[in-house]
């Protein structure tokens, strides 16, 4: 009778909060006190009334079982999304059937909205999926694409010039030139409609200030940028797959063209990064039957959390279609709310993880890291070798150092605490800068998946 299985955990609910203040406010409302008339369905709809300071309670309803991620509706005036009431309600629901009964019938005010959403989803499903809205005028579209390609070519040529100028004068001058030079060049690449090049150029500006060893890092990045320029300028000579990678690295949009793959996807990790204007959410999925790894991206404008919400540790029956030449994928259809359980990926040791990253560089030399699962590793403090942390193979011989950012994050201590000096399994990004842990679990059966990102 208990629906504990599909109810989320606290961490999973709190991961929805758009900011720290919302987390806190939501936690306070995650208690029975102010709530009445709560209920939920097995399909992932949750509702309740929250007594606020006004005379009328706020009506809050959440649908986490929709085809396109979670959706919220609340009668409060907050512009946060989800608001604290939605978070509090989900926390209460996560607490168990004693606080929010399951298998209930929604009251009219909630049912109206839920029915509207279901209809919308139906309509979307009924619409032809295969042909993604063919452009109205193929000829005009072709001319637009051609003009854009010409602009990018002009931009790439200009960038090549800047790079050769820099190398002729020496990297030492980049230290004096500072950030402005790169900002200006990046702006030129934005004008050239090559956002991929623009982002790489902007990153170059930060390297001279990044501490000892910067000339080597700057040379690496300049060389990879040069490689990308050359790849673009001579893409006709490249094999088609590599040419596609070059196009997507330069910044041309690629759409999901792969066949949708239906699987039970284990949600390995969900975390957000923000540049102040835009929040980017990355969700890593592992196909428990296909063994595939897929990355879903979702974006949110300032103050709003990205709409796609998939709590780590649960498994989702869904179909996902990939993009050529990358792990990027899109959620095409979701069959019900995420449920507990699901097989975990079998891991590899440190050497195999790096070998895997090396292999992938053949298809994409610009790859920063590759997602892998390390098994039987122990977090160890490398007190002699610079004071960083590493994940050491159980045989105590080889290890992967953590990236400096991962060493400084609070997630490190959750990982260390989870391990207690014994081997654990860790999923994360393995790349040339080191390993970045994203989630971990211990070897015991039913051990919870612990997210390590904040």
């Amino acid at each position, binding site marked *: 009778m208990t629906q504990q299985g599909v109810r989320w955990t606290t961490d999973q609910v709190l991961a929805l909060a758009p900011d720290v203040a919302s987390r806190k406010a939501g936690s306070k409302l995650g208690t029975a*006190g102010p709530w009445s008339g709560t209920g939920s369905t097995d399909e992932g709809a949750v509702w309740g009334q929250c007594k606020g300071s006004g005379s009328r309670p706020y009506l809050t309803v959440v649908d986490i079982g929709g085809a396109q991620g979670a959706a919220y509706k609340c009668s409060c005036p907050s512009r946060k999304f989800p608001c604290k009431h939605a978070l509090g309600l989900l926390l209460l629901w996560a607490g168990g059937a004693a606080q929010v009964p399951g298998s209930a019938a929604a009251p009219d005010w909630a049912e109206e909205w839920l029915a509207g959403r279901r209809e919308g989803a139906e309509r979307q499903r009924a619409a032809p999926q295969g042909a993604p809205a063919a452009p109205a005028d193929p000829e005009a579209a072709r001319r637009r694409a051609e003009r854009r390609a010409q602009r990018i070519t002009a931009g790439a040529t200009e960038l090549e010039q800047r790079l050769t100028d820099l190398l002729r004068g020496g990297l030492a001058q980049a230290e004096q030139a500072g950030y402005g030079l790169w900002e200006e060049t990046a702006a030129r690449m934005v004008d050239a409609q090559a956002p991929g090049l623009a982002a790489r150029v902007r990153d170059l500006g930060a390297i001279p200030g990044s501490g000892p060893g910067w000339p080597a890092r700057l040379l690496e990045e300049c060389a990879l940028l040069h490689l990308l320029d050359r790849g673009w300028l001579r893409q006709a000579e490249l094999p088609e797959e590599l040419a596609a990678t070059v196009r997507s690295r330069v910044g041309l949009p690629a759409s999901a063209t792969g066949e949708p793959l239906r699987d039970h996807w284990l949600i390995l990790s969900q975390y957000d990064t923000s540049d102040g204007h835009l929040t980017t959410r990355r969700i890593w999925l592992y196909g428990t039957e296909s063994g595939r790894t897929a990355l879903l991206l979702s974006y949110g404008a300032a103050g709003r959390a990205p709409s796609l919400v998939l709590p780590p540790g649960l498994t989702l029956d869904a179909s996902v279609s990939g993009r050529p030449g990358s792990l990027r994928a899109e959620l095409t259809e979701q069959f019900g709310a995420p449920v507990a359980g699901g097989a975990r990926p079998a891991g590899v040791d440190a050497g195999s993880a790096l070998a895997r990253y090396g292999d992938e560089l053949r298809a994409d030399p610009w790859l920063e890291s590759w997602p892998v699962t390390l098994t039987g590793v122990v977090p160890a403090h490398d007190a002699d070798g610079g004071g960083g942390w590493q994940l050491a193979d159980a045989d105590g011989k080889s290890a992967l150092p953590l990236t400096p950012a991962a060493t400084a994050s609070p997630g490190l201590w959750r990982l*260390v605490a989870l391990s207690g000096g014994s081997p654990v399994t860790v999923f994360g990004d393995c790349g040339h800068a080191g390993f970045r842990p994203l989630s971990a679990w211990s070897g015991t059966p039913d051990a919870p998946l612990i997210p390590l990102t904040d």
Partner: protein
Amino acid sequence: MIASSGVGSSWDELVSTALLGTGRRSSTTPEALLDAAALETVRRRAGLRPVVAAAPPEPALDDPRPALPAAARHRLAVLLTDRAGSGGTRRGSAPDLLELLPQWLATANGHGYAPPPELLPALLDAARGRTDLRPQVLTFAGPRALWLARLNGDWKFALRATPGAGAALPAPDDTEGVGRLWGEGLFAERVALLAAVRVHDPAAARALLAGTWRTERAEDRLMFLDSLRTGLGDADEEFLEQALGDRSRNVRATAAELLSALPRSALAARMADRALSCVALDRAAGVVVVEAPHECDAAMERDGVVAVPPTGRGERSWWFGQLVEAAPLDRWAARFGGRTPEEIVALEVADDWQGELHGAWCRAAVRQRDTAWSRALLGPPTAPGAAGPGAVSLAERAKLLAALPGAERAAWVAAFIAAHGLSEAFQLLGVCGTPWAPELGRAVVDALNIARDAGSYPWSFSGVMGLAERCLDPEEAVRLEGLTAAVDEPEGAAPGAGGYWAEAFQRLVGTLRLRRAMRDELAPPVAG
């Protein structure tokens, strides 16, 4: 950066050429340099090898305690998200989660659960910010928290707070180890050692101290002497009596204070003789007559009487107060013709000496933990507060209450609140056992209700409200439900007070419900 296979000189050469610029070395062009560097970069990345593993940490000790039930783990995670404190305003109807953490920890520790390891960092951070949480957090957090604290300097407090976790103390019965550490250890280690041995075997600790007493520095002697408070007994008298002749005044005063807490000690008898000689019952008038001492002689000073009074106090009453305070209370019955403490306290005192005499008796009752005298000095709870026996201050009342049995204490405070309201009750409530006895809980709620009807703002009672949230029996929530509705504001009420009260009561009920849920979640699953 991970060490690469074959870090050749070619890459280093490329970097140094790039640094200087190809303009100064005619051997290569910028394009050729970039081509070579691109090749080398990808080659280096593709050929990365793992680094040599550092020495792994010793695995943490096993924690054999059972894991938390899922709902309780969930609750703990929620309580810990609130830990940064929320600004201290007590407005709004949501419970103050951080205030509930101590109770949660106490219950969890009562059941003997092990913590979920991934929450240990948050637990340790919470305890780092709040010293009052530390003992409970460290008990709950168990061996893995100490293991973590050795790896992270932010949590050093855990090692300090746990005896034996830092520089491992020898077991209290390891005579040789104890002797060595006592002889060679740092001051802090020696204090910790003495405390540990004292708990285990009071006499052994005293012997340890006596062995090196003459060579210790004065400040150290004071600290060491203080550790004898634990397990103080008649056997300590001889040692303390010697300490009365110490070079340091502070050491002498502490020794005298400890001796006066031993009613059978010679010092207590000497003080009683002096005190009793100052107080007499005028049988004809039925009045207590006080004749304070005229001088503070060397013997009195040796027994811990401080000769120089604080500014503004008369010498004689100052000396008198110290004598009475140190005299065993059971000697007074004989002085007053076999009267009970109640009867003695009820006697009229001549010439304004009542305050001085009763105040000193209060201090004596607290120091000697004398139930009968405490009860007598407290007097009936309904007596007009300010004019209570001996004009006893609230702080002193709270201390006297602590000597009474729990049920009697709760009944006394309940009656006090019924008679005098809440404005003076905060300190008294603080010494009552939790959860509050039913009659005490009802008295507090009734008084809050009266305050609402009087139209004042709830934050005038925020202290009591906060205590009620934490201390009321959670079963009371049902009875309180009726109070959460907004009511019409009475005539002359502070504007908006009604709404704020409804909110405050909502928070109270919400908190009580939450505490009941917390308790139920932590209950171990019934077998079968």
